């Protein structure tokens, strides 16, 4: 059951069956391309339709959403060791992405041409492009009403059983080495955190539509706001603001303790009128630039589009140091220069 070629427009390729451990060993070096490809695969998939085209079972195309689970195969896998197989399925409790690996162990890859995935360990480090590539999928999934989990990261997770791992030095693509797959697949129900807890933890509800919880996404639109150099994120409800000015003022208040350099219990931030205006200078000046990540996963400068369009497409906010915004858009850089 291999992926139909007509869906191969992004340059998918199929790698032959990973039946031998050696191949699995070498798989780790190809994992980066796997992720890239899987990213693009799902990107394309979610653009085309809700279900997953080209997946082995056509019945999987359903609006209810898809989830990922690792399925071991029994006798079908003749390799003598259990090969975890990623499989798509549509479940009533839908979540996450899926990636199709067929029964015989063929790996299906999708390409995302050019995204560099940094193979960090544990807390995985992405290059910004990789991040965006990954994030966009989650966003797209959500745009298609599929309740993605909070972090729409992707990964080809097809671990061979640990037995071969033991025989050789551990070489499972999922873990081992120092090379953990950078983009992690959204496995259904993993980590085992209860839904209510996900919702409370600075998660954008637009990304985390728990159908079975029946929460309406339109009641509020929480987005995470991060500020470079700040020790933690904040969360704001975009629906409570009517304009960029209001949002900007609120953010200034929220993050003033970081910009001014005071962060303690001795003062209530933002009450000092003088500091407020100084903040505005800081935020609008060369030091910080307000950016946001839109539905497509691109980082944009805040303020370009009409407010309603902005609230519709904004997924998260980031108060970036002006110097970092240089790569973002030429305009940002000009803006910085102009303020100086």
């Amino acid at each position, binding site marked *: 059951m291999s992926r139909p070629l007509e869906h191969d427009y992004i340059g998918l390729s199929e790698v032959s069956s990973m039946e031998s451990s050696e191949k699995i060993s070498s798989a780790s070096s190809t994992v980066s391309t796997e992720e890239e490809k899987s990213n693009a695969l799902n990107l394309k998939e979610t653009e085309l339709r809700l279900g997953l085209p080209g997946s082995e079972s056509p019945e999987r195309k359903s609006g209810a959403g898809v989830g990922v689970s690792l399925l071991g195969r029994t006798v079908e896998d003749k390799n003598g060791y259990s090969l975890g197989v990623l499989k798509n399925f549509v479940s009533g*409790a839908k979540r996450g992405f899926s990636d199709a690996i067929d029964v015989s162990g063929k790996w299906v890859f999708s390409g995302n041409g050019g995204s560099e995935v940094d193979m960090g360990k544990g807390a995985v480090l992405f290059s910004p492009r990789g991040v965006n590539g990954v994030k966009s999928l989650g966003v797209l999934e959500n745009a298609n009403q599929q309740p993605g989990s909070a972090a729409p990261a992707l990964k080809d997770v097809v671990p061979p059983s640990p037995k071969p791992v033991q025989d050789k030095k551990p070489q499972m693509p999922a873990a081992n080495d120092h090379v953990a797959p950078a983009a992690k697949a959204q496995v259904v129900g*993993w980590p085992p955190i209860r839904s209510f807890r996900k919702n409370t933890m600075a998660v954008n509800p637009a990304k985390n539509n728990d159908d079975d919880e029946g*929460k309406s996404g339109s009641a509020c639109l929480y987005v995470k706001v991060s500020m470079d150099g700040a020790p933690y994120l904040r969360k704001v409800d975009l629906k409570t603001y009517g304009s960029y000015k209001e949002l900007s003022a609120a953010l200034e208040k929220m993050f003033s303790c970081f910009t001014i350099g005071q962060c*303690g219990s001795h003062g209530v931030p933002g009450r000092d009128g003088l500091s407020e205006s100084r903040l505005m200078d800081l935020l609008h000046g060369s030091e910080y630039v307000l950016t946001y990540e839109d539905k497509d996963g691109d980082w944009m400068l805040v303020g370009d589009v009409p407010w309603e369009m902005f609230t519709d497409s904004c997924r998260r906010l980031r108060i970036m140091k002006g110097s970092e915004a240089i790569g973002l858009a030429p305009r940002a850089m000009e803006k910085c220069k102009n303020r100086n």
Partner: protein
Amino acid sequence: MASKRQKDSPEEEKKQASSFPDEVLECVLGFVKSHRDRSSVSLVCKDWYNAERWSRTHVFIGNCYSVSPEILVRRFPNIRSVTLKGKPRFSDFNLVPLNWGADIHAWLVVFASAYSFLEELRLKRMTITDESLEFLAKSFPNFKALSLVSCDGFSTDGLKAIVAHCKNLTELDILENGIDDLGGSWLSCFPENFTSLEVLNFASLNSEVNFDALERLVARCKSLKVLKVNKNVTLEQLQRLLVHTSQLTELGTGSFSQELTLREYSELESAFSNCKNLYTLSGLSEATSLYLPALYPACVNLTFLNLSDAALQSAELAKLLPHCPHLRRLWVLDTVEDKGLEAVGSSCPLLEELRVFPAEPFEQDVVIGGVTESGFVAVSQGCRKLHYVLYFCRRMTNSAVAAVVKNCPDFTHFRLCIMNPWEPDYLTKEPMDEAFGVVVKTCTKLQRLAVSGLLTDLTFEYIGKYAKNLETLSVAFAGSSDRGMQCVLAGCPKLRKLEIRDCPFGNAALLSGLERYESMRSLWMSACHVTMNGCRLLAREMPRLNVEVIKEDGSDDTHAEKVYVYRSVAGPRRDAPPFVLTL
């Protein structure tokens, strides 16, 4: 023991029976509260069985499908309090499709005729509709306590019915449910002359309630002991509530961040100073170092501090903990990092339970905080009484776990979740087998274990060999072959609940437990190697088990993706949806 004597000599038994009237026996047995003890009592002899069943007022049913409401009411005529659990635990993580079942309504209908004096209903992972809630509210005039944890199927409209009709309501505990939050007006439906509330928990509801109604409610319910509000209640509002409730033993605050004037802040501080009876504190969402100090006076008698909604940093936690000298249970987010856990180790010598939740479980790029193996060790060094741990981390080592159980050998609940599947020992890159091996070898009282990380069958050999008191085991992404599961089923005599996902266990493993499943509450296996034929074989061999397979669309017909096996005296389910196949 009297029971033994009765069994040995029938003549004496008759004498005993006549000099020991049933009423007395029932009265005595009324003091036996634990349901396990009551089960034992009921097995002694027929007289005791009858005395027990007539005197039982509270029944706990761990799996709603293990028995039917008809059987229940036939055996126990005088029940006033029912606790029911429904779906398999993995439904918390979306592994069970919607409309799977565990609907309470059939039970309520039977209860309405048999237990018209029902007072308490506590449900976990069950489905309850608004219609059922209304039916409940109107069918039981004495109804007092409703607790819904992880339930679904209802909306805040259903709560309105409860609130409006249950004149004697003492407890309304709505926790972590998947419900339709249609607004906060349900709270305003408490009648103005209603004063009996003792427990009110609506912390996980999102909509804002009418604060004036809440304030009036709190003011007139003089017996209120537990109050947990939701995030929409501001600090200033909280202060107004606290003025009326100095007798609170459990408080869940709303959002703990608001711009307060100095005067408002000192009012808040003095309101907390009046809360000297608090044992439990939770909520505190968005708490910052600005206002946490206002809490300190209220922490004097705290035994349970739940900071799992508050993304505290290590410094904030370190400043807060010394004010809680009697802390026994602590729940935090991993934003406190290892440094925060060091503070736990140094400030909480009486700590018995620690739960560390991930603030960003699904984010890989922006990881704020996070705890590692060193935080775990740090806690164990200072908190020698620790016996319950739930620890989410991204890396762990075998040696760290060994150090932890060396410091704390009395673990009864050890739940370690290394969040990346198949993650090996961070330093040695080896499997985490030895970590769990040392846990089961050292912690002889271990009742509950959750494993994670890169694990081979060796882990399960250890578990089968040493974990003789283990009752609940959760396994995910672990094991090498059927042998793993076989070891556990063969070696753990007290095993009651086994839940497995994404492991290479197949039919041989499943069938090796043939003899075991009837003494267990349930078995869950999903994304393993079990086939339909294996399940059918199990069902055929063990007719008193319900063997259910949840079919997913588009799946292979021979593969059994989700298998749920449980013992039941009620026979196969009659309400199974089409995607649940009973074999």
